[in-house]
Every structure is written in C-alpha cells, then in structure tokens.
C-alpha cells in the first residue's frame, strides 16, 4: 500500500522538476533573445556609422 504512495510522491516530484526545467528553458530563451536583440542593435548601429 505504501509503495503506491511512494510512487505517487515520486511522480509529483518528477512533474515539479520537469516544470522547473521548462521554466529554465524559457528563461534562458528569453535571455538569449534579449542578448541577440541587443547584439543586432549594436551591429545596426555600427553599420549605420559606417555609411
């Protein structure tokens, strides 16, 4: 009986960990996108200065 309960608790833990991993992925994606955007802006600025 308790084995089932342990497995349920494990499932709950796994779900939470998966959710954390997804959030990490989202945050990293946002950071990268923001950095990319900054980078593009910087290049555009550079190119404009060259013109």
């Amino acid at each position, binding site marked *: 009986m308790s084995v089932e309960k342990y497995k349920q608790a494990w499932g709950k833990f796994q779900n939470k960990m998966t959710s954390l991993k997804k959030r990490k992925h989202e*945050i*990293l994606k946002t950071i990268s996108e923001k950095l990319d955007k900054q980078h593009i802006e910087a290049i555009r600025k550079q190119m404009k200065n060259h013109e």
Partner: protein
Amino acid sequence: MNRFEPTTETIKKPEAQENHEVPRSVENPEELRQQMTSEAEKQTGQFKQECTDDLLRVEERAEKDGLLIDGEDKKALENLGTEAEATKKELEFEIALIKNTEKANIVGVTRDRNFEGSVIVKTEDKEGRVTGYALRKNSHGDWEGNEIRYMKDGAIGPVYQLHEADFSKLGEQGILDSYESMPAMKERTIESPEILSEKEASKKFLSEERKKLAQEIREQRKAQRERLSVLKIDSEEANKSPESMDGELEDKQYAQFAERQSVEVDTITERLSSSELNDQEASDERENIGQLIASSGEIKSLKAKLEDHYTKADAIAKNKFESMQKSVEQTMIRNNAFIVHTFLLDERLRHNENSNITQRATLEDDIDILLSFEPSISTSSVVPGSRQGLWGGRIGVVLGGGDIRGIAQTDNGTVTGGIKMRNGEISSSKEIDEKVSNKGERGYNELVVNNPEVFGFFQNVQIDKSGNMIGFEDAGSEQDNKNRKEDFLKYIDLAIQKGMPPLIMTPDRRLFEFSSISNEGVVSVGAEITPKQVAKGKAGLPNEKRTAIGEQIIAKNLFRKIDDQKEAKEIIAELSGKEKSGVELSQEEYLAYARDNQGRFHDFPKHLLEDKNFMLEAAQFDPVSAYEYAGDNLKKDMEFIERVYSLEKKNTRSSVYSLMPDELKKNEKIALIAIENNDFEDIDSTLADSPAVWEKIVDKIVERNNPAKWFSRNIGEQQVVGNTFYMKKGFSGVDMTEKLTSDASFVQKLNNRYPNYRFEIDEYKQLLVTKLAK
C-alpha cells in the same frame, strides 16, 4: 553557426533530457524510499549545477559581446535552484509521512499465560485480521518469539516461529518498541545488614562533613605551626640575653606548650612578667602565649567536633542497621515469613473510611496505585506451613521489599495520612521479629509497610480431600464451571498484565508458581517459593513504568483529598528526576478534581475558593458544595449567589440559604432570591414581618400545594392537608403555620389558582380541600 541565430538552440529541451526513473519493479518500501531519496538528491543537484552553468555561459557571451543581461531574468534563473531544493525537501517530507503510516496498527500489548515469559504485541490489519507477536529476549539479549494468528473469536490460531530476519521488519513497524512498554518487576541488590564502625559510617554517610572537618584540622595544624615558629624565634632571641628565661625551649617543648591548658599558660605568663624582659619583649611574649591559648581552644573545639561527628556517624550506622533490619526483605529472611497485602473483591467495601482512595477505584486502579506510588499500606505476615489468617479477600500481593513502620498483633485500625504516610505503632526490629516469627495458628496481624515493592500476585486456593489444590468448587455444570474458571483466571490475567508473577497460596500459607487450572477447578502449580527467594527476587517496577502508570492514575482523580492528588504528582515528579517543590496543581486540575469528586472542595487553596470564575465553574458539578466552601467574601457576592441558584439541582443534600452567613440570612433581598429558587424552608424568622418576603413565601406554598398532585378522593369529597410551615431562629425552628393559615390571602390565592378545588380553614385551623370538578 549564424551569429544572429538565438542561442536557445543550444539549450536542451526538457522533454529531450534523460528521464530519471525510480524502478517500477521495486516493491520493497524501504528500498524504494532509499532510491527515491538518493535519486531526488542527484536530480536536484544536477539541476542546480545546470542553472549555474547556463548562467555562466550566457554571462560569458554577454561579456564577450559587450551586452547586458536583464537583472530580472538573471534573478529568475538563480531562484530556480532554490525552488528545486524546496521541491526535494517537499518530497522528503512526504516520504517521512508515508513512512510513519507504515507502522503497524498495534491494538494491544499484553501477556498470555500460554506464552510464558513473552510479551504479546497485537496488531490489526485493514481487513480486521489480528496478528500477535509473542516476543522475548534470550539470555544473550537476542530477540526470540512467535507469530500468532488469532481467530475471529479471539482464540489462538496457527502459531509460527519468528526468525532473525523477521525482527528487523518488526522493529521498523514499531512492534519491538511496544515490547519495552510492558511492565516487569525490576532486579534488586539486597545488602546484608551489618553495623558499620564509626569510621566506616563517617565515610559512608557523613562524607561531606568528614571532608569539611579534615580541612579544618589541616588549617588548624598549619596555623599552629606558624604560631609556634614565631614564638620559637622570639624565645631564641630572648635566650641570647643573659637575663632571659632559664633553659632552652626545644621544638618539642613548644609543641607540648601549645597543648597546655589556660592555667598553665597563666603560670608562664606570670613567670614572664617577673623576668627581666623589657616591656616590648614581655608584651610580644604575652601575645604569643595568647595565640597559643586561642589555638589550644580551637584544637579543643575541633576535638569536640570530631567526637560529635563520630557520635553522629555511630548513631547513623545504628539507625541504618535498624532500618535494614526493619526492611521487608530482611524481616522475611530472618523470620522465614511472607509479608502480604490483600484486596477485597467487593468494591463497596474495598475502600472504607481508613482509605484515602474513593470507591470509584477499581481493583486494577488499586493495583496500579500500589505499583506506581508504592504507598504506605497495611499488610500481614504469614509463616509458610502455619494456619494463619489474612485480612479480606482471596487475592493479594506478596511484598518483596519495603520498610516496616510497625506491627500489631491484631488489626490496628491504621489510617492514611497521605499517600506515603500511615499511622500506627512504630516498632523496633526486635518487636517485629517477636510477632512475625510466631508460627502458631492465629488471626491476621497488621504491619504498616512504607514504600512497598511488589514481588508477585497471589490467589488463595483450598485443598480437597485428595490433596489437590482447588481454585473453585466444582459447580456440577459445565457452564457454571466455565464461569468460575474465567473468574479465577481473570485475576491471574490481571497480574500478568501488570507484570506480576501469578502465584498460588495454600491455606497453610505456602506459595507456589501458578501453572494452570482445569475445567473442574484443580490448580497445577510449579515450584514452591520461599520467603528468602521472595526477599532476594525481582520486586517493584522500574521508575519509568511507575511514572507512566502513576500519570494515568492522577488523571482519574481517585484520591479523596486534593492534597493526596498533589502528593501523587510530587511522587511522579521525583520519579522523573524533577524537584517535587516545583509541583503545582493547575486550575484545570482542581476543576477536574471537583468534577470527579463532587463536594470535595474543603481542602482547595483559599485563593481559589475566593475566585468567582473558578468557583462558578466548579459549581457546575455541585453548586451547593461550591457555595458551602466558597470564601467568606464570595459567599456574600449577590451575582455568585444568583448563579449558584441557577445551577442548583434538585435533591441536593442541603439548601444554599442554610449555608449562608447569619448576617446574610437576615437580608431581605437574599431571602427573596432564595424563596424564588424554592429554598425557603430555613428562612430567618425575623423576615416574617417583611411583607415582600411573606407574600413570596405564601406564593411559593400556594404553588407547591397543587392538589392535582396529591388529592386522592372523588369530586365532592374533602381532604385535610397538613400545612405546617417553619422558619428558623438560629438553629431552632419557629412554627409559622398559624400565621399562614390565618392569612386570608393564602386561602384566596389557593382558590384562585386551583378553581377545581375549594380551600378553606376549618374549625380546627386545618386546611380543608374539597374537590369540585376534574
């Protein structure tokens, strides 16, 4: 890689990551628990590391390209590690919760004479199946035992032997812990009595004082030495002068000098005065001699102290020896006698007025009180092989230890003065021996034993013509014999439950181990037990068991006096290693006591008896007693009186009004409240002249005289009603019947209230009632 491509492509998507699974095949909870814990640790650790690494990586990139990471994003990434840690803790908490529910459902811890020497821990599963574990430890301290499957009717079914591997599982389920909770008598070391010498007694009983004295002596010796050297130097100086004292004073002589008494010193002083020392020298010498006198005095005082010390040590040694001689153990050994305490089976008689326990106490409570508090009790001694009487019933306990206070040849009618105190004669060991050693046929004697330690529980048997021990007489019918056997075994089982070995006592006061009883009442016994074995055997419960049982007794408020209830708490506190001076009863405990012992407020503390809130709560249980014992000020409190009246139940043993202080009884307002509450039998006669009071009394008597309740004749017939009414003048009654019957309003009110009857005062001044209608 295109430099404009978002870096997210380099991040593994969670779905694609490796999935750490706890093996589905694991069915052992312990194994599963361990795997889950370690896997969770691994996963959270890995995740936290990934968060750190990812952050470093994006920071490196930002730095390289001269970019800035949004602070909030950075913080969110850092927080993920903390969240992962919290998730792991949550899992660990859940694991702990589940683990707790894995414990076996223990439904009882008991002993069973079929499994001698074992403690049976009974468990029940969700389907209601009861399994017992008969557990014991062998001589090496290792577990042994059996698993018992019980039938639905409670009978023992199949029994299996337990193996080593089973005990670790039983340990996890908390079953082995329960074994320890079962009471068992404790091992003892019995010392042989001997009188110690003064020196030995001083070392053993007065070690602190001895150390202090030794220190004083050392200090005194040192001071003496110092004074002597000063004097020696001065005298040597004096000897250099031709006019000095004659002869040389050696060290030895100085020492002797120091020991002389003041008379001798005076002589020397005189001699010094007559010598030709100069004034200063003579003065110094006198001072030195003065010091010697003082020193000698201190030595004498020390000697006296030493003598006192050894006299005291000797007295203690003698007292200790006498106490040992008066112990239950030594008395049994010297006189080859048992000391027993019997119980009456009739609960109405078991606690007479000599007892400090209420009649609510069951036999089991009595045994618990004896085992836990080891109270001062009344006992009797019997010599095996003799026909000697015992007080009371067929069951009792054999004492293995305790301190005998005194002995009387017959019933001494001793009474308790607290849990640890019982009055009665104080006897010497010689007097005790004279009576206990008596082997003649006699009735029961009475010994008061303090701090009794129980060795075992006995049940008396008879001997039939064939010499069999008989636990009950054969009733002739199977059913009756079954009942009688159950009744016999009931006490044996109770003894086993309490950890007391069950014993059998024969009419000639021999003691045997109980083995079994047949359906016809024939008792089988094991080895015979001698007083010496009892004296040296296990007796009394260990302190932790005494504490546990004692706490249960305290919660039942079984003592007749609240002081004994407090003493019980003090005993338990001391058993637990606490100071008894710290024991106080809380208000809740006083209330619980008031609830369980109605009317017993008299020994409550004064401040509680004056506390209106407390007394009103206590009045819930017995309002009249609450008023009776309320403090003087509270007794006069109008609100308190009204509230008590509102609580007062019918058929109380006395009225509230009668318990009031005299000055209050003359108060018209108080009297009106009392009458309103039908408490008007004792109203003070001085209030008869108060129209308000009299009118109220008349109204109440009219209300009380409802003829529908007592008129026993037919319509048209008459009946005389006895209508006497008394008021009080001090302790005497004042007959107010005539005033009542001559009061026209009384008859008028009766006729108005009960129109189906006619009330009139006849020529004999009696109240005559005629029934007019149904």
